[in-house]
């Protein structure tokens, strides 16, 4: 047997998103950004980005306006809590389900 043949089955993981699946399905409430209130969106200048900084799941972008990847956002609400402008509201997922219907 060749040397490589002896080491072809070990637990070696490859990096990729979504090990936990589409964790967006964990959400009960969804963060929605009001661009009228969001500071970088309102001013058009790079500023604030607290929502991006504090996100434990790296699903908010550091862009103007910031965007949220709902595929993976778990809906914790830290972004809403830390937004100094109160621009992010947590909206029950149920209302979106109705919309999608």
């Amino acid at each position, binding site marked *: 047997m060749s040397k490589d043949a002896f080491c072809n089955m070990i637990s070696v*993981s490859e990096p990729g998103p979504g090990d936990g699946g589409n964790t967006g399905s964990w959400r009960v409430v969804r963060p929605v950004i009001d661009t009228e209130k969001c500071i970088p969106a309102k001013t058009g200048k790079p500023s604030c980005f607290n929502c991006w900084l504090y996100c434990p799941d790296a699903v908010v972008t550091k862009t103007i306006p910031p965007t949220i990847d709902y595929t993976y956002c778990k809906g*914790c609400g*830290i972004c809403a*809590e830390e937004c100094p402008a109160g621009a992010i509201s947590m909206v029950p997922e149920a209302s979106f389900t109705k919309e999608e219907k």
Partner: protein
Amino acid sequence: MDNEKKTTILSLTDEEIMNPGNRACSGCGLGIVYRTALKALGKDTVLAVPPSCLTVLQGLYPVASTKLPCVNVTFASTAAAATGVRAALRATGRDHLNVVAFAGDGGTGDIGIQALSGACERGEDIIYICYDNEAYMNTGVQRSGTTPKGVMTTTTPIKGKLQHKKDVPSIIAAHGIDYVATASAAYPLDLYDKVKKAASMKGGTRYIHVHTPCPSGWGFPTRNTVKIGKLGVTTGLFDLYEIVKGEFSLTGESAKRVGKERTPVTEYFQTQRRFSSLSDAVIEEMQGMIDSKWANYTA
């Protein structure tokens, strides 16, 4: 640290080394800590991780949530494993890489302290980051050495923990290593700068102890992770500091509080279910301890 250039939100890199879609709980403080620390460490880094919440966050075979090489190791052996990685890198001419041990409070201050103490005594060229969520969270919230007094856990279910929190960073500092720092998940920029600084001090053992709120283990709504972390600091309960080659200094929010009023600790206790059985006597005792600790801090 105050004289050095501090990272701001705007200057902080938007490169992400931690992937989304991982298995950490919603609102996990570790998510902030891990994500921020990895930004500071960069891609030329090798990790050693014992079983902990981070093992779960990092992903289940065959998918990893982190774009870094990582060796998973047994519970008690994290610092020794980091030692081994460093030895191999030296032996194979790749010594420029960061070697980082990333463990929870149990893996650091309890079952892992022997290996950590050994590595610190030998002055191993590693960075050791402890995320302290103040109980054994991965197994379902049992008391740990760093669980504060009075906290309800599944192994202190009625009376709360009878003993005070073990001061792990002081124990590590007693080894005389070059760099010991504390940080908080609620102050990611302060954490980022400390990890950066640790990475720049190559050659010896560097230790960073990070206060890491846990919504499910501490009993608070997921949206309050940062808020509670900040309260931990503004009450003076958990202080942000560094000890650089033996020189102690408060940093960030803690430095700003010297000589000023601090938030009463009871406000911190009220936010979390784990403190629900705290007696007035214990609250008074804790406030007294904080006050006498802060009486020694000078600007």
